[in-house]
């Protein structure tokens, strides 16, 4: 790759395998990796697909060089993004300056060299440089969540925590950054870049014209001054808020200026004794305030004399007291408060205007106070009497209510009595009517009673004739009904059971439907264009291959078995021939010296041979073991343990050293 280009329309193109230069042609943000199209060699694929693929490399069958290419895209993308971010912040800070495009491009060059070394072409390059990894992560986080304020150097636990707060699902901790593996890092960066704010999220903050720039600068200035805490005006020694203010405190003296009055004495006083205005004002700064206040007083006093003023205040007070004729503490307080407010307000006036009138005024005030006291006394007395009246009235009310209840009960009782008496009166009147010839009438009455009772009984009997069959009928019907009811109850129960079953079945049906629809959706999700027959063909091929392989394996197995058998027969034959030879030679060995020697040689030959065989077997076993171990080593080697271990030990050493230093420092301090 030669070039990674991020074009104006937001496309990224990698034109060659060697990355030399990254150009950003657009001045708008190309932070959205989702919308960007990445061209790797001639194949087109979008980053989301890439992420999917890199997560499950076996599924998509993406090759390692493709992955590497994706890594490069990621790294370069990241560095480009960092640059954009820096430029943005720069823009914000220097909003008033009209930044030129060329300058920005120059700064890009600088940042690029600072960010990522040219020798780093993919994420595995990141691996060796922990600081770089952490810085990259923290900067990403800073863009996703501005204002986190994480430090770009170690410790990295905060960054890890922020990542998991953002929703990173994998296992993440300081070890991910410190002793990182390529796969983990790739996952983390994929996640972070996915989370980066999209282009549409950010408003365009580029100043377009001079007017816009001016507006922006005004806005920033206002925002700045709004952000500053409020201070009283005298705390502002500079700034526009203090403009047009005098720094002199407003201290005034009551000026005395001669008036056109007829009194001789006063004029005499004015001529002879009264000081001139500048003399009355002791210090120069209070001259203006004094004049202003004198003027204000003259304007707002309505040319009232002091006496008029006092009279007005008194009238005011009198009005209030007449209003406050009702008893109660509140009004008393009110009066007190008015008194308090009127008196001080009058006093300064009096003092202002010389000493002559004070005596008269004092006298008047004293009179007023006496009057007030008298009034208060009066009102208190009134209050007491009213309270007494109230209590009396309440007593009366109580008495009246009890008497009302009493009277009502009496009334009710009497009403009852009246009705009873009236009834009795009627009866008695009737009795008196009949009293004239009592005996006969009594007899008559008795007879009448007799007849009515017999009549009643007769009626009762007649009624019985109707009643009894009706009741019987009712009971019979009732019985029928109850039997029916029980039957119907049974049916109802059955229906209920059936309904329940139906409901259950419906539920089941619904569940099944749901399952079905889910499965249908899944089926739809599955790629439709995949040729089923091709798959099956491939599967069949594979099966055939496997069958062939199995056949071959079987053949090999048969071969080995045959060889084994052969070996066995051979060893058997050897053994037998050896024993035969041994016996033969042993028989001859007693007599023949040569055969004795031969026997000895045979024995050594035999033992040597067996030793050889053993050795051969052992070498076979060791070779097998070696092969096993090599496999294990291979598997271990892929885990990248060595480097990590080295780094851990190095870190451990460093830590030990540091702790030693610290303890030494501590000892020094304590000693």
């Amino acid at each position, binding site marked *: 790759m030669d070039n990674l280009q991020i074009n104006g329309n937001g496309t990224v193109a990698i034109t060659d395998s060697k990355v030399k230069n990254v150009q950003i042609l657009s001045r708008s943000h190309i932070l959205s990796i989702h919308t960007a199209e990445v061209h790797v060699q001639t194949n087109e694929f979008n980053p989301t697909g890439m992420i999917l693929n890199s997560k499950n490399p076996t599924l998509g069958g993406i090759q390692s060089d493709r992955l590497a290419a994706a890594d490069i895209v990621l790294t370069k993308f990241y560095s480009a993004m960092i640059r954009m971010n820096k430029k943005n912040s720069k823009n914000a800070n220097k909003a008033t300056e009209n930044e030129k495009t060329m300058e920005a491009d120059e700064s890009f060059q600088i940042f690029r060299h600072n960010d990522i070394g040219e020798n780093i072409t993919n994420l595995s390059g990141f691996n060796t440089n922990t600081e770089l990894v952490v810085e990259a992560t923290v900067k990403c986080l800073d863009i996703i969540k501005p204002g986190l304020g994480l430090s770009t150097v170690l410790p990295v636990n905060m960054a890890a925590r922020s990542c998991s707060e953002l929703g990173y699902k994998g296992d993440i901790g300081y070890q991910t950054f410190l002793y990182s593996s390529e796969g983990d890092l790739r996952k983390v960066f994929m996640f972070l870049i996915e989370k980066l704010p999209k282009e549409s999220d950010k408003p365009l903050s580029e100043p377009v014209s001079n007017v816009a720039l001016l507006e922006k600068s005004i806005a920033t200035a206002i925002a700045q001054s709004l952000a500053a805490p409020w201070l009283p005006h005298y705390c502002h020694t500079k700034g526009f808020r203090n403009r047009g203010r005098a720094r002199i405190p407003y201290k005034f003296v009551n000026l005395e200026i001669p008036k056109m009055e007829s009194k001789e004495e006063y004029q005499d006083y004015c001529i002879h004794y009264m000081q001139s205005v500048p003399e009355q004002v002791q210090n120069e700064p209070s001259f203006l305030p004094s004049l202003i206040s004198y003027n204000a007083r003259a304007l707002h006093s309505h040319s009232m004399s002091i006496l008029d003023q006092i009279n007005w205040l008194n009238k005011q007070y009198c009005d209030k007291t007449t209003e406050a004729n009702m008893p109660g503490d509140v009004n008393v307080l009110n009066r007190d408060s008015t008194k308090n407010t009127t008196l001080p307000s009058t006093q300064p006036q009096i003092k202002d205007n010389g000493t002559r009138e004070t005596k008269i005024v004092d006298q008047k005030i004293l009179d007023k106070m006496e009057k007030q006291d008298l009034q208060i006394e009066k009102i208190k007395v009134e209050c007491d009497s009213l309270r007494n009246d109230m209590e009396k009235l309440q007593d009366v009310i109580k008495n009246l209510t009890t*008497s009302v209840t009493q009277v009502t009960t009496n009334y009710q009782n009497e009403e009852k009595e009246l009705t009873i008496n009236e009834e009795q009166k009627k009866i008695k009147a009737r009795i008196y009517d009949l009293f004239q010839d009592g005996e006969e009438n009594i007899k008559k009455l008795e007879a009448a009673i007799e007849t009515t*009772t017999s009549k009643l*009984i007769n009626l009762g009997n007649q009624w019985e004739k109707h*009643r009894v069959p009706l009741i019987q009928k009712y*009971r019979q019907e009732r019985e029928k009904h109850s039997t029916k009811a029980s039957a119907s109850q049974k049916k109802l129960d059955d229906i209920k059971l059936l309904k329940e079953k139906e409901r259950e079945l419906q539920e089941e049906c619904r569940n099944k439907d749901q399952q079905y629809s889910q499965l249908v959706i899944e089926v739809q999700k599955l790629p439709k264009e995949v040729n089923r027959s091709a798959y099956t063909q491939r599967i069949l091929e594979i099966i055939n291959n496997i069958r062939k392989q199995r056949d071959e394996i079987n053949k090999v197995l048969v071969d080995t078995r045959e060889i084994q058998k052969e070996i066995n027969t051979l060893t058997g034959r050897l053994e037998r021939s050896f024993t035969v030879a041994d016996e033969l030679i042993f028989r001859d060995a007693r007599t023949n010296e040569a055969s004795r020697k031969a026997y000895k040689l045979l024995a050594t030959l035999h033992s040597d041979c067996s030793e050889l065989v053993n050795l051969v077997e052992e070498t076979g076993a060791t070779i097998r073991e070696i092969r096993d171990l090599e496999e294990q080593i291979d598997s271990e080697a892929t885990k990248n343990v060595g480097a990590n271990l080295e780094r851990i030990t190095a870190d451990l050493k460093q830590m030990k050293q540091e702790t030693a230093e610290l303890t030494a420092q501590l000892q020094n301090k304590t000693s």
Partner: protein
Amino acid sequence: MAPLTDLLSCSIIEKDSNGDILWTWSYPIVSESQKAVVARKCNLEVEHNSPQVFVFSRYKYNWFYIHCSEVFDSDKLPKVKQFALVLFAKDFNPRKYEVLSRVLSKMYCKTGKPTEILQLYLSVFTKGSCSTQENGTFVSDDFNSHCFIISTNVREMIKTFELETILIYTALLLKKRIIVYHHSLEQLLKWIGIFPLLMKHRKVTDNLFPWIDLIDDELAELKGLSHYIAGCRNSSISSRTDLFDLLVNIPAREITVASHAKESLTMTKTHKEIALFMIQLSENQSYIESQIISEINDKTQDLLNQLKSLAVVQGPDGRKMVSAQTLKEKNLPPAVEHFLINLAVAENLLLL
């Protein structure tokens, strides 16, 4: 023989083999509201007949007496398992009506004919007596002369509540609202009969409700009265403090004074005296029941005479009345003064 004109009606409620409860017969008339109350109280709805055979209570100003009977195969009542004979009457006399209802029930059992009952009823109503061949005769006048209406036991009451009996006495005297609780209906009806005897000088039975249920219409009737004595089987009555000033819990031997009535039921020296007097009465074995009742009554009369001696003011109807002013002038202790005023109000002797 005076005719028993206090009788209002007679009716029969039958419970048949279907489990239905039917008002099969009545004379002369029973209103629907009366039916509702009686149906609630007659106990026929319970599967097994309750041991309580005779029940009495009141509805508005009338009393009703229910006599339940089991029907046996020998009786001439086919398909009927139980029946209740209900009598409505103007007066409160449980013993009299118990006998009468028993006579009538037996007759009905034997003949199975309501006309026989009608005959007996009319004979009692017109002549004051009736006679049957097997069940003897009933004469209403026999019961009128008796000084106690139901077999009562004031002695037992005093022994049960000891000194606290005075609370019942005072509450009765001052016309307070009293609720008597007992879970057993039989016991409740037995105990409720004792209360009127403590106040013989008044017609306490006018405000006696032997058995109420916590049902709205019955409670509404109670609430319409300023004072009453009501029996209740429902233990949740104890929480209804709006219904009573004094709760007498018989099985627990407990008397509860509602917090709002505590002030008016303050005990004075007089109360202590009467309480001790009652206990002495109950401990003295030589006294019979009627003597105890009359002794208590005498004591009450003494108390009332004392009050009447204070009555110096002429009332509007010419009677001597007690005025609150005179009581105040006596400078009595506040508790005593309060009690006397309340008593005068209860006796309708207070003039304001």
